[in-house]
């Protein structure tokens, strides 16, 4: 089984608060966390910002108690889409999107959900938990998403904050799990404060309430998150088989001394 991962920690403007949340996650036993930048296209046209690099955020990463390795931090982008034109940014090649490790989309209408499941190049589809579902899930797009390796995300922090949202969370999650039969689901928090985080085994128990089986619930916090990270990595490669890396150019010191034909050729 993979280590536990928490794939949704909101990227707060306040660095200190974010650092506190990261330390709380490390203390609870998560080995990987993802810092989530949320972009909502309903507001005026927004630029995709560059992701926070973990090294500038924390000089030394917090060490998970009991292990010697520090926590691993990845970056994630969530696009809240309510109009088909918002999805064009995913196809743009020269924006900052390529710098993010995981890309998630939050569809607000049924058409966009269908497009996200079948066409869009994303890793995660977020399920709304704070309101009644605006559309019903249907089996064909959900099955297509499962075949493409896309996962569905259920948040649990709104359920901690408010009892009405608790009802919506459970009912939405139950309808999702009924349709997708427990496969390809992850549970994460959208924590802004350390108190809103819960330990991985507790989150796995919460998965039981959402209708997942015991092994599916534990996989929702560990194995499925690992699969999402690998899926995100393959986006930078050619079909997940070949990847290119820029090799640093050797410093050309002897350019003047040797004639051109005798200059050492850069190795393949």
């Amino acid at each position: 089984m993979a280590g536990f991962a928490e794939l949704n920690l909101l990227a707060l403007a306040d660095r200190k608060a974010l650092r506190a949340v990261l330390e709380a996650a490390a203390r609870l036993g998560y080995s990987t966390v993802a810092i989530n930048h949320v972009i909502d296209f309903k507001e005026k046209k927004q630029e995709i910002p560059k992701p926070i690099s973990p090294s500038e955020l924390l000089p030394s990463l917090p060490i998970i108690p009991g292990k010697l390795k520090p926590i691993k931090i990845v970056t994630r982008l969530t696009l809240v889409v309510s109009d088909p034109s918002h999805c064009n940014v995913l196809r743009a090649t020269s924006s900052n999107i390529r710098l993010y490790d995981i890309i998630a989309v939050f569809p607000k209408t049924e058409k966009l959900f269908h497009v996200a499941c079948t066409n869009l190049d994303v890793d995660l589809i977020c399920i709304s938990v704070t309101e009644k579902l605006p559309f019903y899930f249907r089996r064909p797009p959900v099955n297509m998403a499962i075949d493409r390796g896309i996962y569905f995300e259920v948040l649990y922090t709104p359920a901690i904050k408010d009892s009405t949202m608790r009802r919506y969370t459970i009912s939405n999650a139950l309808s999702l799990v009924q349709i997708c039969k427990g496969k390809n689901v992850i549970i994460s928090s959208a924590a802004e404060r350390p108190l809103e985080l819960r330990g991985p085994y507790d989150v796995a128990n919460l998965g039981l309430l959402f209708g997942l089986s015991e092994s599916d619930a534990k996989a929702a916090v560990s194995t499925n998150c690992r699969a999402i990270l690998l899926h995100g990595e393959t986006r930078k490669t050619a079909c997940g088989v070949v990847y290119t890396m820029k090799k640093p150019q050797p410093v050309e010191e002897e350019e003047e001394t040797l004639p051109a034909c005798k200059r050492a050729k850069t190795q393949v």
Partner: protein
Amino acid sequence: MSAPLRRLRETPRHLLVCERSHVRHERSRHAARVRGHAYNCRVSFLIPECGVLPEPLKSVTTDMGEYYLVKNLPLHELVAQEFISAFVKTGSCYALSYNTRIDQDNTAALLPTDCHSPLKHIGKLILSVDKDTYEELGLQGRPSRYSGKKIMRYIITIDLTDSAFHSDSKKYKRVLWALRDKKPLEFDFLLSWHHTGADGSTLMSYFSKHQIQAHQPKITFSTLRNLQCPVLCSNELQGKPEESCSAQELFEWLGAVFSNVELDNKSFSFVSTYCCPEPSTMMDQAYLCTITGFILPEKIIQLLDQLCAYFDDPKLAQWVTLTVHGFADSPVSWRENEHGFQKGGENLYNFVVFRSLDYWLQMAVGANDDCPP
């Protein structure tokens, strides 16, 4: 909608095996069961109607042997021929990786027992690795049984005392290459060595280059007052209504006693509503001793013999219990049965020895475990 609700009503899978026999019976397997459970982290015994521990028992509890903690030991050191000839072949060498979680990280363990010939000293190195490490390591193993449809965990077993495992064999070279050059793995290990015979080099001197520390097991004694105890009849494992309690009820009661749970179901107590099973008697005092550390099965057998010898003199107690907990993160439970951690990694056994030297043995495991023998 009914399927998830039905699932919520079920408890996670757990197994409890109860058997009974007599200590002096020639086919009694109590010693084999104790020896089969290699990694023990806590031993507790409860003696009813006892205020002061008798001297022989006290001396056995204080002499539980020491164990060593080695930090950052590369795994290939345990496969080195000098280690095998000095420790594995001359005694029972136990090693378990420390601070590794069985459901998240790689775990390593060294088992000294062979199920078929308990007197022969052998050594088996068991590695429980995740998928990435298995694919990088290059040693042959089998997928874990509790891994689900997508195999995420593999178990690699290397027999160190195999006749084909000497310095020149291809097998040895391959194992050494994998563990030293291909994917060097390092763990903190808990080590212990049981040997009869002259002291050669000890573990302390062998691993002096690494940070090795000797530890003694922690022992706590306590006397419980006014304890409600179930009445047991040694012939009735299932218990007779109105006469004696069943083995499962005793198991639960013992767990409540060890967790310091109030047994009288007071109306204002919100922690537990557990009651002592009926029929029960009230005891003035009971002696509870707990030993925590890396405890060897050989020492537990000595403790069990002393507990049986407790009944040589007439005593008030009808029975005594000895409970042994295994490590939650060990890769094996009994012999080479696989052990996993789903929501809890319990693997424990409990002896109830009666005055007539009949005994009950209960073995319990949690969700991702094979059935105990």
